[in-house]
């Protein structure tokens, strides 16, 4: 209760201050303890208008839009292999840097392990001090739990990124396997101590962690903040997860709590999943109508980015941008940021409440569950279901007026989105994917549910 109360005050406080500072000049006054700088270019072009936040420990001036390198564009390779479209990555990075973006977040695990290399190729064309690199120690696989393997992974990151120091290093996804796995990955093997040494040596400028899953690990690490001195923490925050993360999945934690815990300790937060992998831009029709009615000229996604960016203790908001249009839209949103008013904040909360009525599966297409050893294309199956749900193509009875159309759309679309051999009916329920899901979706259960629905559609026995 105390926490909740405190957060309320923080937010209200912040919004009030924004009101004083004037709506257009965003984060500046808002960041109570941090004191952020706001660069207000005078030209009409978005160039030079990016909103920046300042890291209290290293005084890094970080762009509010951070480039997430997890959903890089791919040139279609053969069936099982997708190759990163490096040319496109370079062009997007060029455009981002030209418009003030300077924070790039990657991991050894992303894009089948090729994200770091692509990031390195794109960024090495710029002076080292002109950008900040964030990467992670993604030693999820038990075979990389040893000290040697973990350190090798860390050194390999430097090699792939073509750098000799890392600006932001994260323990990746703490909490996903609970306390036990955390101990194995970082404590028993002494890897966390090693990273602290590296920070002391200056090869890691900021040390932090990204959190998904078991909140006990999050709480534990913050309780040891005096010792570890976390420079930043990466959390999932958006207007749906602000108050509803736990309701969507009892095993997850509301962003409101996570953010307040960090703000309390003056730890800057890096935001991931501000758009829930596109789920907050690909929304049901009636929600589009409500958002567009308020801001007819702004994209649906811009609401989500404004929500995340409006909090003062946030260092940067990561967006995994696959297409140039994503980048352009996000640049517009943050050049400069128009913080949410109090009224807009509660409006988005009512949108979130309305979205909770839809039974979408909280998959953000991060592909952490992949590859499924039995060849299932898990995200594609879940996304197709969500797409049909958003389009109103999930029917509950053959008496529904659009039953035939919905059936056709679901079944034909299913075969188009997912090759037959990778569909849900091939899921054997081995459960190997469950541990990897940052959203903690019970994947086999959902796949079997979708399979039953598909069978009912095929057999007309709904």
């Amino acid at each position: 209760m105390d926490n909740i109360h405190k957060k309320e005050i923080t937010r209200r406080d912040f919004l009030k201050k924004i009101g004083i500072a004037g709506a257009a000049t965003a984060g500046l006054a808002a960041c109570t303890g941090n004191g952020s700088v706001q660069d207000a270019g005078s030209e009409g072009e978005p160039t030079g208008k990016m909103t920046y936040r300042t890291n209290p420990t290293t005084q890094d001036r970080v762009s509010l839009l951070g480039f997430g390198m997890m959903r890089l564009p791919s040139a279609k390779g053969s069936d099982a292999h997708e190759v990163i479209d490096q040319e496109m990555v370079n062009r997007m990075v060029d455009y981002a840097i030209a418009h003030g973006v300077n924070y790039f977040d990657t991991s050894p695990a992303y894009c089948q392990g090729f994200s770091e290399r692509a990031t390195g190729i794109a960024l090495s064309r710029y002076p080292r001090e002109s950008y900040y690199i964030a990467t992670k120690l993604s030693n999820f696989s038990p075979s990389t739990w040893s000290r040697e393997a973990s350190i090798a992974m860390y050194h390999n990151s430097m090699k792939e990124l073509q750098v000799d120091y890392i600006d932001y290093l994260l323990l990746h996804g703490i909490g996903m396997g609970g306390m036990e796995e955390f101990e194995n990955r970082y404590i028993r093997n002494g890897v966390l101590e090693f990273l602290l040494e590296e920070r002391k040596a200056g090869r890691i400028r900021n040390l932090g962690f990204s959190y998904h899953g078991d909140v006990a690990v999050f709480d534990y690490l913050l309780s040891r903040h005096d010792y570890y001195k976390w420079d930043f923490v990466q959390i999932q925050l958006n207007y749906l997860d602000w108050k509803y993360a736990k309701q969507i999945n009892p095993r997850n934690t509301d962003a409101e709590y996570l953010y307040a815990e960090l703000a309390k300790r003056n730890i800057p937060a890096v935001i991931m999943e501000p758009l829930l992998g596109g789920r907050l831009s690909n929304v049901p029709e009636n929600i589009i109508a409500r958002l567009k009615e308020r801001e007819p000229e702004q994209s649906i996604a811009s609401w989500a980015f404004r929500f995340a960016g409006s909090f003062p203790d946030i260092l940067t908001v990561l967006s995994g941008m696959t297409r140039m249009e994503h980048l352009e839209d996000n640049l517009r949103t943050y050049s400069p940021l128009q913080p949410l008013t109090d009224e807009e904040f509660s409006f988005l909360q009512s949108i979130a409440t309305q979205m909770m009525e839809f039974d979408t599966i909280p998959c953000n297409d991060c592909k952490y569950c992949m590859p499924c050893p039995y060849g299932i294309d898990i995200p594609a199956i879940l996304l197709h279901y969500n797409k049909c749900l958003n389009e109103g193509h999930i029917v509950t009875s053959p008496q529904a007026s659009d039953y035939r159309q919905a059936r056709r759309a679901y079944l034909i679309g299913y075969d188009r989105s997912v090759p037959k051999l990778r569909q849900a009916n091939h899921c054997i329920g081995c459960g190997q994917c469950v541990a990897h899901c940052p959203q903690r979706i019970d994947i086999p259960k959902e796949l079997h549910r979708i399979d039953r629905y598909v069978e009912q559609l095929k057999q007309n026995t709904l």
Partner: protein
Amino acid sequence: MLRKIRITVALFFFVFITLLFLDFTGTIHHWFGWMAKIQFLPAILSLNVGIVVLLIALTLIFGRVYCSVICPLGVYQDIIARFGKMQRKNRYTYSPAKNWLRYGILTLFIVAMIAGIGSFVALLAPYSSYGRIAGNLFAPLYQWGNNLLAYIAERTDSYAFYATDVWIKSTVTFAIAAATAGIIAVLAWRNGRTYCNTICPVGTVLGFLSRFAWLKPVINTEKCINCGLCARNCKAACIDAKNHRIDYSRCVSCMDCIEACHTKAINYSHARPQKQTQTQPADQQQTDDGQIDNSRRNFLTTTALLATTVAIKAQEKKVDGGLAIIEDKQPPHRRRAIVPPGAIGAQHFAQHCTACQLCVSVCPNGVLRPSTDLTKLMQPEMSYERGYCRPECAKCSEVCPAGAILPITPAEKSAIQIGHAVWIKANCIPLTDGVECGNCARHCPTGAIQMVPFHGRHRYRGGAGDDKQRPTVMVPAINTERCIGCGACENLCPARPFSAIYVEGIELHREL
């Protein structure tokens, strides 16, 4: 005029019968499925007395119009011959009948039918030959065209078209179809209806009847100027212009001669049958028969391919994304072939099936494919590598014109046992990979599979933590009394390339 009517009706039949083999959605069958059922041989095999009597009556009245209008292979030859005629007009000449060959083949055919040598029967039957040509050669083109439309539809976010798999169901059958199409095309190009009047058993039977037909082309000797134009336009080579005689056993009532005659000396009318001059044998016709056999043999040898079994070990997950490689399934060795529900049993099926491939063409699940077994070559059988016999589908039974697969409803099908599942312990994923599975039990439409604890010995290969105490391993237990043999378990079994559960056919289907 008569010729134009013949051409119009023939094209109508030809187009829609062809579409029966091309349309994988099954919509055409609803309206035009009867066109396959009025084919002579299928009607005889399905003991469809009404149709047979009707066709005999038709022939006794109008002559062999069946051959020039209803039979798709006949029309196919006419189309090819038309191109031949473009190259050189008035190209045909009279040749005497080769009766020993016709009746010889007919006798062999009947013997083979009684003896149940389906492959021989299927090789000669006209309708099924055309079915194979359409199903093997035309259908892929049609499907590629469809897939192109589906590709466009997908990009315009339309659900009007959906893509379909294009695959060769059996190389042997494909080769025979291609050879048949080629040989018949060459014959038709050069000499018109050679096949119909020397090989085709249906043509021989109908030819025997058509001699007594009420209506037939008659030469009016008073008007005839002996120009011989009729004979040179007779694709059946049956007009002996010199003697003003027409061999009505070979005349297919195409009316070309009536049209060709400048003096209107030929009328389609009633006339007393004249005595036929029966002349003796021939030369070239023997070749086609032999060629088909040879090509078949050649292709049989090439299909004996060894399946390489490369077990892909489930890779350890270290990075995000990507798709595991899925190995293609290989058909298990079945001691008995599985035939579709409605076929009553292997014997009934073999005796009635003309191997026209209509059921193979319409099977939406990729289950039916032509057999490569010599005694029932090209007759369809079931296998579950690409899909399984889905509970909502009974398409093959709806389209079968020959009564080999009798009509059943999906509800009836759910209670017909066509085979039963067999468990192969050595392949079962819970035992080999040490993971939970039960996909067969989850998808069994009759609930014939339940998962039970396994207490026997097994060797778990690989994976971390071998020494740990594992939870009880569950393996499938099959209730063969309830199993209908649909193959859901076999198709959805994660073990590859050989499933850990497969369906074994049974001799005689059983109603549960």
